[in-house]
């Protein structure tokens, strides 16, 4: 039976699960970023992200991009998968958002392509340049941000966040979301298979959405019940509103060196971008 809503949902759930599991294995492999202390790694990558956000020129952003690629390569992350994840989907969305900026209405300037003469609507050189810079900036930030979960085990990320002073409630919610997203995705998958096995005719769009609405409702109830039981399980094991963390990583000279490298390179690139260097 051809029910595209079911098939697409199943397909995307499986894809997400596979991708998550696929990337988790690289957190344990040997590589530059994997060998760094988690706090230092997060701070260093955030410095690169801040540097990318502050950069206004395409050349500077390309250099930042090259650094992200080099870090991924030195961390033994398969380049094809990394590039696909960073440079295909996310910049496409950023590019879509940037489309209106290319027109003379939003960014006046030198005409590149004239679309209409009266009223005058054109794509401007300044607009295209801004759109490219914006998309490249998003891609650069994402390329650094993605390196954190790819090269760090989740428990280390949250412990490092705790050490860095992120509020406990944020860490707990993030942790629970990461833990249960897989379980709930599996539940959705089972629910979708069950619906597919009972679907005897092709559903129209409205019917499909009604069915999806019921599924969302069932998932909400399940999530609510599970949340209550999980809270009981936490209470029964001594939870008093505060999660205790054990941080066993130690900062070495290698970490300090990497942090210094990040600060110096970012500072040089930002100054270069501003025309100071």
């Amino acid at each position, binding site marked *: 039976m051809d029910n595209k809503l079911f098939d697409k949902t199943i397909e995307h759930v499986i894809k997400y699960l596979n991708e998550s599991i696929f990337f*988790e294995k690289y957190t344990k492999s040997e590589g530059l970023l994997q060998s760094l202390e988690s706090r230092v790694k997060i701070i260093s990558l955030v410095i690169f992200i801040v540097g990318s956000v502050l950069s206004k020129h395409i050349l500077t952003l390309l250099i930042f991009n090259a650094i992200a690629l080099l870090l991924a390569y030195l961390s033994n992350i398969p380049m094809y998968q990394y590039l696909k994840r960073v440079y295909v989907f996310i910049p496409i969305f950023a590019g879509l958002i940037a489309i209106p900026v290319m027109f003379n209405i939003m960014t006046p300037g030198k005409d590149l392509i004239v679309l209409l003469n009266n009223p005058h609507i054109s794509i401007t050189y300044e607009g295209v340049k801004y759109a490219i810079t914006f998309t490249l900036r998003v891609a650069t930030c994402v390329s650094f941000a993605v390196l954190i979960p790819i090269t760090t085990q989740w428990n280390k990320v949250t412990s490092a966040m705790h050490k860095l002073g992120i509020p406990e409630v944020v860490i707990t919610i993030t942790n629970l979301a990461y833990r249960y997203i897989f379980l709930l995705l599996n539940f959705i998958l089972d629910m979708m298979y069950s619906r597919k096995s009972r679907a005897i005719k092709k559903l129209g769009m409205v019917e499909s959405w009604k069915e999806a609405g019921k599924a969302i409702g069932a998932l909400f109830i399940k999530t609510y019940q599970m949340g209550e039981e999980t809270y009981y399980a*936490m209470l029964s094991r001594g939870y008093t509103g505060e999660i205790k963390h054990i941080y066993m990583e130690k900062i070495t000279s290698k970490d300090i060196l990497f942090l210094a490298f990040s600060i110096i390179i970012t500072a040089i690139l930002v100054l270069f971008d501003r025309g100071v260097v």
Partner: protein
Amino acid sequence: MKEIYKVVDVSYKYPNGSTALEDVNLNIYKNEIVAILGPNGAGKTTLLKIMNGLVFPSSGEIYFEGKKLTDEILRNKELMKEFRRKVGFVFQNPDVMLFNPTVWEEVAFSPLHLYSKEKAIEKTDETLKNMKIYHLKDRHPYNLSGGEKKKVSISCILSVEPDVILMDEPTSALDPKSRLEVMDLIRSFKDSGKTVVIVTHDLNLACLADRCYVLNKKVIFDGKVKDLFSLNLDELNLDVPDVSKLFLKLKERGYDVDIPTTIDEAVDYLSKIMPQKNKK
């Protein structure tokens, strides 16, 4: 024998007004395994939650080691710590117990709340090794099999060495091998002096118990598992072992037989009554 739990006239109503428990009375003594049997919706899990101080009865009283369990007592940090260290609760669905990113952190959750950091690390490693799941320590709970999840959830409570273990349907949804492993663990708890309360509707598991209660909102039976067979088991919707069913059928046909609850008991019984010449 030292009394661990004393449940006196406990009733519980759900927020929607329906009754879960009605005037339940029971006693649990030190170092015994007690099974609480009953069909679905009989209030077994609610009773365990009351015994673990997670919910409180609408009426009636519950005492743990002679002290009344109340919301006020469990709000006291020190008393609560003491109670949580002494009583461990294994939930029916291991997924609700496994909320940390790795198995190691999961097992370390209680020790970290109850002990110093150094002791918590030591206890966690020790428990994982004793339970033979040390190799799983870095795994995400999502990637575990059903049997592994159950073992991890049991390890989560063993890491604080509780005196009393409450288990809600500990063998449900397990394959035969994992089921036997869990049953062996329950036996080992008793050997090490712990008190175990098992909630189940599986009589195979209840056979491990020294005593059992049958609950259907009220306590309708209190005694030895063997004596259960005088009840109408079909009406109670209990999962009777096949070997017991066989002997119950024989009894219905007029044979004067005892009802065994395990294969070993049945073999012993049959060996005694079968003529020697048939023995190979």
